[in-house]
């Protein structure tokens, strides 16, 4: 009988090497499409439940998720995205998580899980860190497969958008640790922001656009900060 434990899958993989990654600000998008169709009826995007966690970075390097900050970040994210897509005359359909979800539509749930897994794989294996696939090169050919069409039928949308963010802030202890270590000539990392966003054409399942941020700035706790982060994440979003 094991006692108390809890697991993190994608988060662990990503944050595991994030300290190696954040050497500066990186934002380079990959896409197979630079434009959405101009017809308004073809500019419908379903926003899948974003995966966001904001945490305190303690002196010793442990991250502690802060539920209140996370709640705020999710709120800012959702408001900001709605406003943004309204401006470019794209219709954003927010797919909220509800308790009734579970066990009902397993087909959709499996797609959401696949979506997260593919996005995480692109980030880890094609974008940043030590786990890049050596033979993948510049080929950008990720897909969820034709099953993605199920989302199209369910939401009456053409695209699915997913956002993942992990944002950490140095505690006062961490700040002291940074000063302390710097005095001894050692540089250690403060809070970091890692995120990615992916757009799927749910007619085909193809990932048509992907972008990530990995940097030592950014703040999702305020509306302004969220606007800056999302602006950066979506800077190359198909027009």
């Amino acid at each position, binding site marked *: 009988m094991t006692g108390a434990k*809890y697991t993190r899958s994608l988060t662990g993989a990503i944050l595991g090497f994030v300290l190696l990654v954040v050497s500066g600000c990186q934002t380079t998008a990959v896409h197979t499409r630079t434009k959405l169709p101009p017809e308004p009826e073809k500019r419908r995007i379903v926003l899948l439940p974003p995966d966001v*966690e904001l945490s305190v970075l303690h002196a010793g390097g442990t991250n502690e998720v802060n*539920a209140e900050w996370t709640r705020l970040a999710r709120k800012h994210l959702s408001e900001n995205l709605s406003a943004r897509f309204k401006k470019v005359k794209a219709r954003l359909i927010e797919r909220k998580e509800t308790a009734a979800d579970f066990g009902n539509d397993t087909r959709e749930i499996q797609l959401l899980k696949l979506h997260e897994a593919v996005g995480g794989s692109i980030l880890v294996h094609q974008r940043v860190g030590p786990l890049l696939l050596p033979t993948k090169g510049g080929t950008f050919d990720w897909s969820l497969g034709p099953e993605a069409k199920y989302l199209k039928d369910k939401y009456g949308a053409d695209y699915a958008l997913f956002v993942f963010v992990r944002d950490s802030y140095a505690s006062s202890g961490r700040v002291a640790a940074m000063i302390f270590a710097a005095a001894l000539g050692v540089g250690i990392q403060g809070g970091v922001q890692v995120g990615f966003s992916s757009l799927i054409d749910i007619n085909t399942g193809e990932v048509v656009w992907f972008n990530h941020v990995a940097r030592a700035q950014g703040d999702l706790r305020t509306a302004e900060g969220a606007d800056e982060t999302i602006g950066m994440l979506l800077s190359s979003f198909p027009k």
Partner: protein
Amino acid sequence: MTRRFRSLAPILVILLLGACAGDDKSFYERGLNQGAQNAAKEGDHGEKAAAFPFKIGDLAPAHRPDPKSDEAGIWYQVDKVERRIKTAGERYRHAAVNSYIRSVTCRVTGRYCKDVRVYTIRAPGLQASMYPNGMMHISTGLLLRTQNEAQLAAVIGHETGHYLRRHSLQRIREIIDASNSLFFFRVALAGAGIPVAGDVVTLMAIGEMTAYGRNHEREADGYGLLLMTQAGYDPEEAWKIWDLTLKESKAIKKDEERTVFFASHPQPEERMHEMRRLSKTVKTADTTDLGQDRLQELVAPIRADLIRDELNLRRFDGFEVLLDHLIEGGQNLAELYYFKGEMRRLRGKGKDFVEALGFYDKAATMPGTTPPEFHRSRGVVQRKLGRRNAAMASFAAYLRANPQAADAGIIRQLIEEPEK
């Protein structure tokens, strides 16, 4: 915030080392007594019930953490895990099993019935784990190993103890504090030119942390005993689970040295002994329910599936211990002797095939029913031993019993293959 500032002082590392709590067997009793005191003070399960040396008290029923607290952050993450588990493929979706476990859980947890959500996971081995938000996982392998409902109640009670005492939160806070203190200490030692000393300190801190975890297990054992007894189950069943676990792990780890230093759980011998001793102190005339028939009735129709899961691990020595344990129970012996044969067929070393055939033959004479693949396995072994006619008869019997079998084609081919 004091917790974080405290960690600013590297001097605390010295305190950390000085305060080595280490292993403390009194935690079994502490779990038992602490729980009993709280139960006496009905409605006083909040922070007030905090007991030395843990900093936080029992949870109140329907507890939700303060949204601004560190606990809320932990729950947020674990709630996400729970959403995944709800739709996970390895969840065991057997309506009768799940409603049975639900009813046992409610009986054991009482007022916390709604707070503890048990998910049955299709997996071999005895596994149970508790998450800080009230989610519990138990493996189907546990159902195979518990001889009666009282033993299952003991496990559920133990895990509920972790939940009520908020062991996860305590542990996460400890880890943060320890890693903060360690960080300063290591940097300072490295700065002073003696980096190896930092490693020694780290090792000591890990040892301390695991001892802390073992004390949590002891406390949860005590709590489990209390909860199952309050629910009217026979507390003298609790230690028996450890008896089997110990035998199995001895068989599996024959050659492995066990290290106490890094162990997350106390030694099964110790738990067995302490649980046995304490159970006598709490047992009364009202606490004698075993629920043996209820559990066995539930498990009988799914038992072959669960045994196959165990066999798939190919840990033959441990598997044999488990089978012998089940044979002692005496339920559906035909099935159990069939699996004794299966284990040998799959291992295929030395005299295994001959012995396998012996067990298949025995299974055929035993009370109960063998699984549908019985004749096929028997035929395969007979064929390997060169007993062609017997093998063909077994394959034919297999096809007669399972005309729709997915592998009917390949079996027919085996029957028709020319004699060498």
